[in-house]
């Protein structure tokens, strides 16, 4: 974590050499709702995939597109634009 680094660990010019190293961040923790896919209804149009601002929906098994709950912030855009209503937003459960 950043607060464990000392001045000696600073890169010249504070340049970050490792591309995309922020991807460890579990933005899934932000969620208050999560998307649930009804595979029966899904027509695999990939609109949910392309419209996710967090790139949290990924091409998965058998051509379905599913939410990566590690990243999904639960915005509901996928549910809102699904042309066949195959995605429902449900309240995030306390685990």
């Amino acid at each position: 974590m950043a607060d464990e680094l000392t001045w000696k660990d600073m890169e010249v010019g504070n340049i970050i050499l490792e591309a995309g190293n922020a991807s460890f961040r579990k933005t899934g923790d932000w969620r208050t709702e999560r998307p649930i896919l009804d595979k029966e209804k899904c027509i695999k149009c990939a609109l949910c995939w392309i419209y996710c601002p967090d790139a949290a929906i990924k091409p998965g098994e058998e051509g379905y597109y599913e939410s990566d709950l590690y990243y999904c912030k639960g915005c509901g855009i996928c549910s809102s634009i699904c042309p066949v209503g195959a995605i429902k937003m449900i309240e995030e459960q306390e685990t």
Partner: protein
Amino acid sequence: METKAVKFGGKLVTTKEFLAEGHSFCIGCGEALAIRLAMKALGENVIMAMATGCDEVTTTPLPYTSWRVPWMHTLFENTAAEISGVEAGLKILVKKGRMPEKNIICVAMGGDGATSDIGIQALSGAFERGHDFIYICLDNEAYMNTGIQRSSATPYGASTTTAPAGKFSMGQATRKKNMVAIAAAHDIPYVATACPSYRFDLMKKVRKGAELKGPAYVHILSPCPTGWRYGTDLAIKIGQLAVQTGIFPLYEIENGRYRLNADPPKLKPIEEYLKLQGRYRHLTAEQVQRIQQMVNEDYAKLKEKVKASPL
């Protein structure tokens, strides 16, 4: 096997994410989507310069970065000057034989404040000098990163924290600065408006602007749930309404000639767009009517320009 691309009818869109997952854009952010789509159109052979703003702050808190392309940020108002240096630097190094020609696309991105307010000088200079770059304005219509303060891109009637609706104020009392017309007035080869709700239109325009020689300007409406005050799931719907009501028409200007990409036979009433957003909640019926009038005027003016010099 990992899917390399997703097929949409005849179009293939890469599954590569140049803006890494795990960024800290707000839940349901239209700007994040706009950037994600633009990056897919641009590919990895780019060097990006970005202004201080939402997009910079949510993606690069030291020592972490969400960028999977070469990326730089210095200050707020100088992105166009910075990319001018990148472009000229690359060109001269190739000319002097110090690096191979790779046709690297120079991309500058900035918010509406960075573009039409504090950064307009640098942008104007870069346009005039004719550098080979694409400038993408992510327009969420206020200084959102610092807390929803007004910019010259804030539309008439919208409430922001520095031009708030109040007992003696209707919010923004000035009209949105027409940055697209200002870009076009520099006679650059390509100017376009785009909206993430129209994903292929956006990607096509970004690709076109990137591949052309000379300066290109693409102005992307970026719906903001935090600042525009709407439910996090509405970015696409709101973007669609912006286009369908005519308040944000989709058009291109190629070498001074206009093409209107979407011209609905009847524009939807502006109220449908305004009523979804808390920043317009304070408006009276008269004010909404005034806004409708202004939208009609501006749309008519645009249609005249399209008629006068069609593509």
